[in-house]
């Protein structure tokens, strides 16, 4: 187990390194400069600016300089905001994204599990069809449509919750609900099909033949086994939701990371783009790793062998 973890961590570093390298050089290919209206700047002004940010050096030198700083934990300074470090920008922005994301994830997973489990247990009844229809709608309608509907009905008409802005706990609710629709739909569909599969397994009949009550059979034998694959799916879903979705953050004026990310791409804030990409990738890789470890605890058939393979 220890060897497996060390090995995986090693691979994670290599993966991140590749991502950083690719992003860095791809970014060099983008047309334009980080400076607004460069044509209005004189040559000497440009030279001074380029020298200040190290852009006068060849790409290779810039790259090694960046890697060198990165190894010391330095993500550099923003081009756009004078004197602000990328690190502080990420730290400031990640909170709201993570909060609405986490809230959406918890809410969505619980509702999704209930919906999916009930619909599997009531397979081929109106309840099941209803739940499946809801899930398909939830997956196929973009979340900004729900966001707008929620804002209009709950925010404007009923005035139950604030329409937008980031002021109190109440203002986190609508964005979370809008985000959770995808989670509900995905989780419900997934657990439903897993449940149906497990319900047909011989060991469920065995459990019934022991005289266990239906509730015990469902909880101990069916749901337990159906949940295992759901965990794999939840990991990446969690990352994508917690790191913020641009549209939802924009609609609800949430000062989140997703919003910052697009902004920095639009103005070619090189160091911020690099920083956030790195942060997203690291988080993603780490969650996938975490899921694999959890998987091992949930499913006794998985062993972490000496060689490092699962």
């Amino acid at each position, binding site marked *: 187990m220890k060897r497996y973890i060390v090995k995986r961590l090693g691979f994670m570093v290599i993966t991140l390194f590749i991502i950083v390298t690719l992003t860095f050089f791809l970014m060099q290919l983008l047309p334009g400069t980080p400076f607004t209206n460069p044509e209005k700047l004189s040559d000497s002004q440009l030279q001074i600016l380029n020298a200040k940010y190290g852009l006068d050096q060849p790409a290779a030198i810039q790259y090694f300089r960046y890697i060198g700083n990165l190894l010391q934990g330095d993500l550099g300074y923003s081009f756009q905001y004078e004197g602000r470090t990328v690190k502080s920008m990420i730290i400031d922005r990640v909170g709201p994204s993570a909060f609405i994301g986490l809230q959406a994830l918890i809410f969505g997973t619980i509702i999704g599990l209930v919906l999916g489990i009930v619909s599997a247990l009531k*397979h*081929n009844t109106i309840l099941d069809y209803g739940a499946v229809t809801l899930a398909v709608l939830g997956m196929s309608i973009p979340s900004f449509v729900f966001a707008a509907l929620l804002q209009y009905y709950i925010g404007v008409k009923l005035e139950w919750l604030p329409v937008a802005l980031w002021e109190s706990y109440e203002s986190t609710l609508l964005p979370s609900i809008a985000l959770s629709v995808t989670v509900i739909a995905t989780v419900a569909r997934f657990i439903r099909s897993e449940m149906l599969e497990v319900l047909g*397994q*011989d*060991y469920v*009949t*065995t*459990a*019934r*033949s*022991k*005289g*266990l*009550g*239906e509730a*015990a059979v469902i909880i*101990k*034998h069916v749901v*337990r*086994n159906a949940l*295992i694959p759901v965990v794999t799916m939840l990991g990446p879903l969690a990352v994508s939701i917690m790191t913020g979705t641009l549209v939802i953050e924009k609609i609800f004026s949430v000062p989140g990371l997703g919003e910052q990310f697009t902004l920095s791409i639009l103005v070619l804030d090189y160091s911020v783009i690099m920083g956030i990409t790195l942060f997203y990738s690291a988080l993603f890789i780490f969650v996938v790793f975490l899921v694999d470890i959890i998987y091992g605890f*949930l*499913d*006794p*058939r998985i062993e972490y062998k000496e060689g490092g393979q699962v």
Partner: protein
Amino acid sequence: MTEEILAVTDLHVSFKTQAGMVTAVRGVNFNLNKGETLAIVGESGSGKSVTAKAIMRLLPKHNAQISQGGILYEGQDLLNLSVNDMQKVRGSEIAMVFQDPMTSLNPTMRIGKQIMEGLLKHQKLSKTVAKEKALQMLELVGIPNAKERLEAYPHQFSGGMRQRVVIAMALACNPHILIADEPTTALDVTIQAQILQLMKDLQEKMDTAIILITHDLGVVANMADHVAVMYAGEIVEQGTLDEIFYQPQHPYTLGLLRSMPNLSASRSEPLIPIPGSPPDVMTLGTGCPFAARCPHTMKVCHDFLPKYTHLSDSHTVMCWLQDERTPSAQIPEEVGSVYE
């Protein structure tokens, strides 16, 4: 000594399918005595497993239906029991062992816990006592290092060992009846023999009656006291082991016996199959279901279903050849000669 513990009378089981209702079990009758073994033999699709699951009331609820008949366990009709009362019977009075030990254990639960489940539910034991009992059961079925193995997961066992675990699980609450649905089909031959011996030993120790479902006549010869031969959802012949093996009266039983490999026969001698294939129960006519494959058909066979003819107290056959109205039907002589 022969005290009846289970009586199945006129059992009919139907399934809803897309093509309409299919009656998979069509009027099955048999009795089971305390401590004895009844083997139910027949081809795939003859309704053996459905009969077994019907006794346990484990048929899928959404499409299966016991449309007629009774299942009397110690005088009480299981079909009239409430869901709760039936749960009390399952596992504690009647237990079941399934065909494939690779899939009949929960892969994510320690086997000790799986054995304890029934004990906790039926005998209201404390966890420590139940664990002790589970340990005894594992030792009883011959699992080495039983104490450590309680904590193991099913995938850490071989097929034969898993089937031992399944048997331990089934017998944990000392059930009066054990239904074994092809318990050795998924195992290789040497392991088969061990598992059968184990079942026999435990039967003696615990005085359990066994319903053994199989298509392997060799297994039947080893284990059974009584044999019921099923074909197309009906028991076409039943009797004691000797009656079925030495005086088979139904042409189907005869065919089954004849198709068995014979050690004393020369190698060049081919096996004798029953021509044709089992009928589709959806399209069965009014006559004997075996008529189309039977070498001794008469006109009456195609039009009317034969009644049961009682040849002795234990031996019944459902064939026009044995009907008293059939003037002089003679069973072909080869029967006796081949099987002695």
